[in-house]
């Protein structure tokens, strides 16, 4: 009786720990040191369905989405609102559903993935999954976006 109870509870605990770990890691961002310039034109980035190539005056957010991504539309809405609300920020979206080469180049393994670019288009910060908003706001503030 005891071993089976312990094993079952152990498995249940493993599931809970896995879930909490996932919640903690999901959307957590990290700095990128390569400072790669992200060419929005080459990526065929769009904003509200229209092609966009310009960076924001202070910062640009680039969201990589796929058509089978459940959480992408929600994140897109949130980030678009941010663009509208904050000065100097631009938002652009890149659909990588059929562009696995782009995913491979940037080592993207999940969508949404969000890149934060500085005013010159250098990639400085990236987040995999649904971004943690307080973290994102902190990073934006560092670039002077308020």
């Amino acid at each position, binding site marked *: 009786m005891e071993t089976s109870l312990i094993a079952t509870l152990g498995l249940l605990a493993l599931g809970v720990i896995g879930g909490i770990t996932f919640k903690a890691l999901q959307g957590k961002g990290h700095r990128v040191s390569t400072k790669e310039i992200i060419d929005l034109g080459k990526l065929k980035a769009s904003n509200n369905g229209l092609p966009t190539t310009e960076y924001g005056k202070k910062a640009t957010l680039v969201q990589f989405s796929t058509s089978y991504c459940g959480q992408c*539309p929600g994140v897109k809405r949130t980030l678009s609102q941010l663009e509208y609300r904050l000065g100097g920020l631009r938002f652009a979206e890149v659909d990588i559903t059929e562009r696995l080469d782009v*995913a491979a180049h940037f080592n993207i393994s999940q969508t949404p993935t969000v890149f934060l670019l500085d005013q010159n288009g250098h990639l400085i910060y990236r987040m995999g999954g649904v971004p943690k908003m307080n973290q994102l706001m902190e990073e934006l503030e560092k670039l002077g976006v308020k």
Partner: protein
Amino acid sequence: MTEIKRIDPRGPRFGAGITSVLSLASFALSFQFGFIAGYPLMVALFLLFAWSVFSPKTHPYQLIFQKLVRPRLKEPTELEDPRPPQFAQKVGFSFAILGTLGGLVISALIPIAAAFIFIAAFLNAFFGFCLGCQMYLGLRRFGIIR
């Protein structure tokens, strides 16, 4: 591109909830009464997974969700592409095959398969984390699936 009917994301999560209970029960039984005691439930999981792989629209979970659960819920804020959850069902199905066929040869495979199915289903149902969906883009990138 063919039009793909988007689905309520809570449908698959509801099914995953039932799957997690069944797999945990299979796991507990095989520890309590010998590995083979978990076998009937493993076969049930195998059949249910097979059903959702080959005919997701007629699946009993889906019908229960449509008829009894969804009318009691609010409108979903977002619909999602059915391909990643269907892919996740195939992953679950693979583990069920391992437990059902492999379990006849090596009975320890029954609780092992049950444990994997439980973790994946549990994370999906209670944390909204779909392991198979998460792996979808990565696996496509490496050419493992199309």
